[in-house]
């Protein structure tokens, strides 16, 4: 009898402990949601501000902000969390390229099932861009939040000293400028000033800052896949490979990587391809640098607006959420216009909004930050990464072929494109 009593008491204690922090919706206690923002200081500050305001207004639904645990990549952490069933309710650092795996693992909730999703999503992304976020099963699992377009930063002083009036607009203009800018200033036989420089190591995401945005620009906005099939614009891909091959072949780009510091911040290179986060870095480490931002150079025959890759980070709700409706309410709160303004002000990152450059709410910020206004304008012409399986390995393959053809010039661009198609199809076929 005594044994039974002790056992019942223990079970009650365990049940009581297990129930803590999981008050059901109608149970009288406050609902608790967990929100994971990106782990960088600016976004943590933004998330902290927004969560404090939310919690003050909604004592019945408290949000606990916890930065994504630091790892090699957010995607690894989220996949591990899905595998372990420890995902948060909401995360605002979802890279569309990783979404395929998350959806396949049934880790996310389709957001298009929630009331008001269509109008909010259309207001942010527009119909055409929104389609690129649709998963193969027809649902949309992500709400476009911010996108950082990759553009060309240029050092005005270095271009001016080489007798170049403005940023190069085409491949030929870029190469011509490069031949004048690249030089040995100390006379020791070693080049000190370069037209550009890229990390040549075959790391898959490095191609998101050279080959891929240049390919999108050269193909006037094409991505790699269409309807689940590889749909590479082979002419544009070959032109981009040939362009970088000339840059390395003629020595206006170094075939190495520097460890002594960022060559753009050290004013050792005239151009740099990056996103708006670079503005804060320049402000901090090279405040006296005279620089500008321009669209990426394109082949001479490309007309119309210049497209580029937008490094999207979107918001998703995980299927482990006990309170999906409340989580959706919080997501709607996160993407309010005034909070997008806060994203600009605190993080120097670009919210995805169709009215970004026309809405008077943001006008003051862009007037005070004209460089950021360039990114705001570029937002109308961006593309993301396709929602396709094994994108990481496909980009890794692209990286290897780019390295062989462009950096070391060992493969002709046309052959390299054929190799991209062949090897990508092997990966896609294996995954079918």
């Amino acid at each position, binding site marked *: 009898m005594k044994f039974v009593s002790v056992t019942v008491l223990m079970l009650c204690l365990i049940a009581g402990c297990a129930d803590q922090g999981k008050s059901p919706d109608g149970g009288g206690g406050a609902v608790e949601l967990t929100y994971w923002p990106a782990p960088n200081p600016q976004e943590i500050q933004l998330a902290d501000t927004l969560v404090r305001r939310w919690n003050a207004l909604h004592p019945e639904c408290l949000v606990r902000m916890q930065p994504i645990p630091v790892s090699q990549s957010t995607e690894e952490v989220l*996949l591990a969390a*899905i*595998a372990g069933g420890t995902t948060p309710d909401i995360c605002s650092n979802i890279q569309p390229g990783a979404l395929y*795996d998350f959806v*396949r*693992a049934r*880790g996310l909730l389709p957001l298009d099932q929630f009331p008001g999703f269509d109008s909010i999503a259309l207001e942010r992304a527009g119909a055409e861009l929104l389609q690129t976020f649709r998963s193969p099963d027809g649902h949309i699992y992500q709400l476009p939040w911010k996108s950082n377009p990759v553009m060309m930063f240029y050092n005005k002083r270095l271009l001016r000293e080489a007798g170049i009036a403005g940023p190069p607009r085409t491949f030929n203009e870029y190469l011509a400028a490069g031949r004048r800018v690249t030089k040995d200033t100390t006379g020791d*036989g*070693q080049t000190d000033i370069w037209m550009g420089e890229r990390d*040549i*190591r*075959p*790391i898959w995401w490095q191609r998101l800052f050279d080959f891929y945005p240049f390919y999108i620009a050269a193909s006037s906005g094409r991505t790699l896949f269409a309807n689940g099939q590889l749909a590479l614009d082979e002419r544009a891909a070959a032109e981009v490979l040939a362009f970088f091959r000339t840059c390395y072949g003629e020595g206006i780009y170094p*075939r*190495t*990587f*520097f*460890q*002594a510091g960022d060559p753009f911040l050290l004013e050792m290179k005239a151009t740099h391809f990056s996103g708006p986060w670079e503005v804060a870095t320049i402000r901090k480490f090279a405040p006296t640098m005279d620089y500008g931002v321009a669209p990426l150079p394109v082949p001479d025959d490309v007309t119309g607006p210049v497209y580029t890759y937008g490094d999207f980070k979107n918001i998703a709700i995980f299927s482990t959420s006990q309170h999906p409706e409340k989580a959706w309410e919080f997501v709607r709160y996160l993407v309010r216009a005034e909070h997008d303004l806060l994203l600009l002000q605190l993080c120097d990152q670009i919210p995805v909004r169709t009215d970004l450059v026309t809405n008077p709410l943001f006008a003051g910020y862009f007037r005070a930050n004209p460089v950021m206004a360039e990114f705001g304008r570029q937002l109308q012409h961006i593309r993301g990464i396709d929602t396709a399986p*094994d994108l*990481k*390995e496909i980009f*890794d393959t692209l990286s*290897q072929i780019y*390295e*062989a053809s462009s*950096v*070391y010039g*060992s493969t002709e661009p046309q052959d390299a494109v054929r190799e991209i198609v062949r*090897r990508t199809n*092997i990966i896609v076929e*294996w*995954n079918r």
Partner: protein
Amino acid sequence: MNGRASGLRDRFRRSNRSAYGLVLPYVIFFLAFVAYPLTFSLLLVFHRWNIVTPMEWIGLKNFTRLLEDPLFYASLLNTLVFLLLHIPLQVVVALGFALLLNSRIPGRGFFRAVYFMPVVVSGVVVTILWQQLYSFDNGLLNGMLRAVGIGPVPWLVDPRIAMPAIALMATWKNVGIYIVLFLAGLQTIPRELYDAASVDGATPARQFLHITLPMLNPTMVVIVVLSTIGGFSLFIEPYVLTGGGPMQSTLSGMLYIYNQGFYFNHMGYAATLGFVYAMIILLIVLLQRRLIGREQTA
């Protein structure tokens, strides 16, 4: 008689029980950490699995992919290139230092400890140190070369130089252990052989060629076998230094298996690569055993 037999059987059973009890911990360890992973990886060879989604049976698709995978062939070739560079360098350097440390030089004990030090330092630490040495713009090696008027060498970004640079580093890291093995071998050679050769007028060079080298043959074989097995597990150095580049010239077999398994989450394909590599290593070891056996018989 029957009673005596059953008593013996009981005693035997009792002693068996104790024996089973004693081996049980190891059996549990073996089942959990050897038999289970091995069986599971064999199962994986026929599946596609990214840890998160359920396993999917794909038959021999992993093997057909492997056959047309240029990176598998590249990684195999790179491993063989590494072995061809590393083993002779390892043997020559280790033997040279062992001969030096075997002679009566001052501070012999100190130098023995110093040469062994890299062996006990973590591989990652050593690799990061060499990354600084090999740095193109501010590395110590290029700084020294610049001082004598030679341009900086792109140690880790030239596909022709990167693997020799890694082989050099791996030799520096591991040479201590092979010095010790050679020293042990040298100390087993009878002094009388050298005395007799001196009396016969043999020069030190001839003594080395005709006494030291033949007498060190068994040690040499051990070192070659150990270096071969070690060479096939080349991972930390290319992982930290080059990531397998430039142009996959330093992509080793182990690094490629790791990439497929833990970078792309292709557990089934990684298991297939591991299985094929294990077969290749097994073949080489069998070949070496056969050669050694023939030598010993001869």
